[in-house]
């Protein structure tokens, strides 16, 4: 160590310079970190999708891509619809009351979570960690499912189960029901997904 006394004014300026340099460094980091954000092109690619469901038969599902995610359109059978209210006690959020603005638009806040009772429109992505659940429409005992299974979906990643209205069962990793995307009927058989204002 040197014995020279500390020049405090020099030290003050060194600290000030160091701070100014740090501010500059942080400011330079901003554009670099900003490049991680979705590009303008990615932001623009969110257009609504139109689907013709005239060919959809009861018990069938069609999948369309909207914002890179699968959206399912399912025509439920009367038996499947009849089961919905009966399984309420086994569900985590049967009335879709949890975060309704994110998961269930106002026109789907009902027993069947849809505009038309038989047609369910839902984003096929598990709210847990983003896998796409597989369809398990057949009722009864099968691997990874309870013996009194009433039909629905099973997420292959972490085992969350959903009923035929996309409502999650209790004590499963997924905290929420499947998302119902904004959608609107342009006519009886033409459905617009991604926008509910046009009509």
């Amino acid at each position, binding site marked *: 160590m040197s014995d020279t006394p500390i020049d405090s004014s020099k030290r003050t300026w060194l600290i000030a310079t160091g701070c100014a340099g740090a501010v500059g460094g942080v400011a330079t980091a901003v554009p670099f*970190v900003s490049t*991680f*954000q*979705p*590009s303008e092109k*990615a932001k623009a690619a*969110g257009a609504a999708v139109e689907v013709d469901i005239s060919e959809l038969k009861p018990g069938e599902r069609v*999948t369309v*891509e909207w*914002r*890179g*995610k*699968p959206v399912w359109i399912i025509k439920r059978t009367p038996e499947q619809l009849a089961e919905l209210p009966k399984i309420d006690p086994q569900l985590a959020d049967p009335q879709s009351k949890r975060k309704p603005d994110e998961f269930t638009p106002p026109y789907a806040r009902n027993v069947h979570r849809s505009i038309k009772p038989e047609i369910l429109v839902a984003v*096929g992505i598990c709210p*847990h*960690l*983003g*896998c*796409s*659940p*597989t369809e398990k429409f057949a009722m009864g005992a099968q*691997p*990874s499912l309870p013996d009194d299974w009433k039909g629905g979906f099973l*997420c*292959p*990643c*972490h*085992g969350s189960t959903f009923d035929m209205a996309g409502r999650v069962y*209790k*004590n*499963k*990793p*997924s*905290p929420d029901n499947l998302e119902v995307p904004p959608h609107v009927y342009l006519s009886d058989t033409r459905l617009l997904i991604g926008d509910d204002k046009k009509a």
Partner: protein
Amino acid sequence: MAEFKEISPNASAGAKLTNWFENRFPTAFDAYRVHMSEYYAPKNFNFWYIFGSLALLVLVIQIVTGIFLVMHYKPDAAKAFESVEYIMRDVPWGWLIRYMHSTGASAFFIVVYLHMFRGLLYGSYRKPRELVWIFGCAIFLALMAEAFMGYLLPWGQMSYWGAQVIVNLFAAIPFVGPDLALLIRGDYVVGDATLNRFFSFHVIAVPLVLLGLVVAHLLALHDVGSNNPDGIEIKGPNAPKDAKGKPLDGIPFHPYYTVHDILGVCLFLMAFTAVVFFAPEAGGYFLEYNNFIPADPLVTPAHIAPVWYFTPFYSMLRAITTEMMYALIACVVLAAAFGVLKGRMPAIFKGIIVVAAAVGVLLMLSIDAKFWGVVVMGGAVIILFFLPWLDCSPVKSIRYRPSWHKYVYAVFVVNFVILAYLGVQAPSPIGERVSQVGTLFYFGFFLLMPWWSRLGEPKQVPDRVTFAAH
């Protein structure tokens, strides 16, 4: 400047050349002495000590094969899968380079897990080697990031959905999560932007960090000296030394251990090449079958699981359900009650414990189990960093610990393997229960270590290392 050495004009050409270099670049000659010819390693190393060298060898294999793969691979969502198949079918010997790289990834984790377990057995993380261990844990973490991002590049179904799940883990963090996940993906779903940035991280950013950490790991190791199976300091003030101050229980790393390691390297390469040539997919464990299907953002494969080396941690993630949260809350309450009733500390600290436990329980009740699953999975890796301070045994090596400690370690290993197995399997109610018990045991092993590692009567540690000349 170092002193300029003159050499006799009659010296051989080789000696003159060496002298010429030594005068101009003495650092290299010093480094050779400090790290090779005069680095004294304990002479009682057993086979467990090969895995550090092997990890370095695998690192070299990965870097070299990686450089050649990048020459043919295309980081583009539309072309990535195709370009990997092109490497496999059309690039001369491309299949070999790719299989070496994919097998190397699994080999890396095998040798690193064994290397870490060696540290656990012989207390290699204990004072004064805490930083060596911490750098090592950081390497493990960097390696996990490297493996995860590399796995997206072939753009198969497993690549895609694995990345989707792991990136969504970050979305579980309260408040900032969704934006953070968006920042990682660079798009609203895993897509081309994600693939490109993962490629950049995989081939340049993480390898640079990894190399820096490996250098720090080795430099810190050579500063404090290697541990050994007896856990005895061979360079300490009381350790036996010869007239020149060289440790009697040590031998120069070069040539003794360099030559010795050749045997281990040969055995390793025999196993490695056997996998590369005869079982590159290793039954779906090294290369998962679903990854031979191109990524499809609309369909998740019926069974998705991470590659084997992540599965113990993945099991712990899956184990955290709403039910499990009550068990965890009970653990927090019990721990706090125990600390308050039995702890010898001022009342103020007891107050802090009660408040912290209350806040913890409140958070555990108010935030989704999903987030705590992520915390548990991250915590399972982070807890390793604290091992030097958790282990309070009076002796380092398992050899001189009470015999029953061996059973504790055996159960830990079996538990880890069971968790790994369950992580590969499809979710099932029984598997869930077992993995919940396994998770509690994993954390119990570490968090209760300050207590159990002190129990029992340690055996007499000898003054000199156990070594028989052969």
